[in-house]
């Protein structure tokens, strides 16, 4: 977790970006980069979530 940002950290970053855009405290110049970053974060989180989902499903399948 030291090396790789956790899901939660990424969600926090994502939330911050969205809030900045919402507050219009971001310049248009940075905007594209930020949006790109947000997209990247979302993708990363999705993949983490998918992995977790799969893992959980496997565990649950074994369990029942």
């Amino acid at each position: 977790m030291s090396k790789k940002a956790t899901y939660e950290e990424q969600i926090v970053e994502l939330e911050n970006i969205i809030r900045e855009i919402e507050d219009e405290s971001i310049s248009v110049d940075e905007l594209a980069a930020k949006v790109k970053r947000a997209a990247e974060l979302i993708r990363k989180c999705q993949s983490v979530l998918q992995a977790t989902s799969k893992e959980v499903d496997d565990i649950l399948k074994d369990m029942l």
Partner: protein
Amino acid sequence: MTSTSAAQNKQGDGRKIFPLSKLTESISVQMDKSFPGEYWITAEVNKLNYYPHSGNCHPALVEKSEGRIIAELKAFIQSGRYREIQNKFTSTLGNSLSDGMQILFKCKVGFHSLYGLTLNIIDIEPAYTLGEMARMRLEALKKLKAEGILDTNKSVHLPLLLRRIAVISVETSKGWRDFNSVLDACPFRNSIKLTLYPALLQGDQAVSSILGALENIHIDHHQYDCVAILRGGGGETGLDCYDNYKLAKAVCLFPLPVLTGIGHATNLTVVEQVAYGNLITPTALGRFVTDRFDAFAERLMAATRSLKNLSRGLLPLQVHKLELYKNSLAKVGQQRVRKSRELLLNTSRRVEVIVKSLLEQTTASLSYQLPARLGEAYRRLAIAQTAILDKSANRLTAQATAICRERIHRLAFLAEKVRLLDPAHTLKRGYSITLNNGKPVKSVNDLIPGDTLETIFAEGKTTSTVNTIKHE
């Protein structure tokens, strides 16, 4: 003594001397004088003194006060009269005239030379005796009650089994036979021991006879369970002895329960009333004894039956109960495991449901909510920026156009000004310019006569000379 006696003699010393007969005669005369008629007298028959041989009766009469004899007199009942009186008594009282009875009698008092004072009973009123007997019975009961012993015998313990019975009876009596025949039919006859105490059960001697028997029993009373007084075949007469206070008191105070079977009386005698139990007849008393044996035997049999049934029934009941415990143990044990299993299964289902729900929710948040928010935020920002740009463009357009317009206008103004300043314009309207030495003449004072002036017109020039100068 009267001097009219026929048998009197005179002595020399003056003493009067009479023969005995003279005296008795004289007494007889005096008695007849003093007691001329017949009198009704009450007294108690202390002793009847009936002489069967002669049929005469010489009752000894007494009067008592608080138990002491205060008067005593012998009477006489002639045999024929005695028979009449007895008949009346038996029919009225159910009892013959006997010792101890209170009587109301009609008599003649006399004096007999041979027998002395004579009380000749002519009649006796049985109704009085009957009343007296009832009174005495009541008195006896009252007395016993006052002494607090009326129910004493009733409170003595009567054993369940009357195995040792002291019997007061007569061996040859019907009562004794009846009693024995009932007992002989009893299967427990061997367990019953009878001891006979013979006694007179009716008549003058009965009270003392029975009291004597009771005394004898008393000596060995520890060997007995009860006393039975049996009288049978004696008819309805001679029962007045059982109203006797002394006998009744003895029964009351007797340490053993006393049972009576003395036959049927019109009225319940005192003894019957104070005895532990009155069975009326010897047969009934015998049944009373055997019934108790039967009852005890029945109780014992019932107890034995119950013991066998219950003891054998109780344990199968317990075995059955254990069987039930076994079943319920199996039931609750397996049920508990089943329930826990269900609970665990539910828990695991719950885990699945909530985990999936969490993941779905997170996925939704990540895939829809956050991107939507991002898009929305961006759109709002873009719209704001576009608005700024649009505004700038508008401002630019407005201002640039305005500047152009203003410059065109200003240039037009300057052009007009130049046009107006152009002399050609003035000349066309009929004005002309006068020049002196090439310079426009602006004042008449600048001129002197003889100057050559050049006049410029719109269409050409002329030259002229100044002749005169006139000042205004």
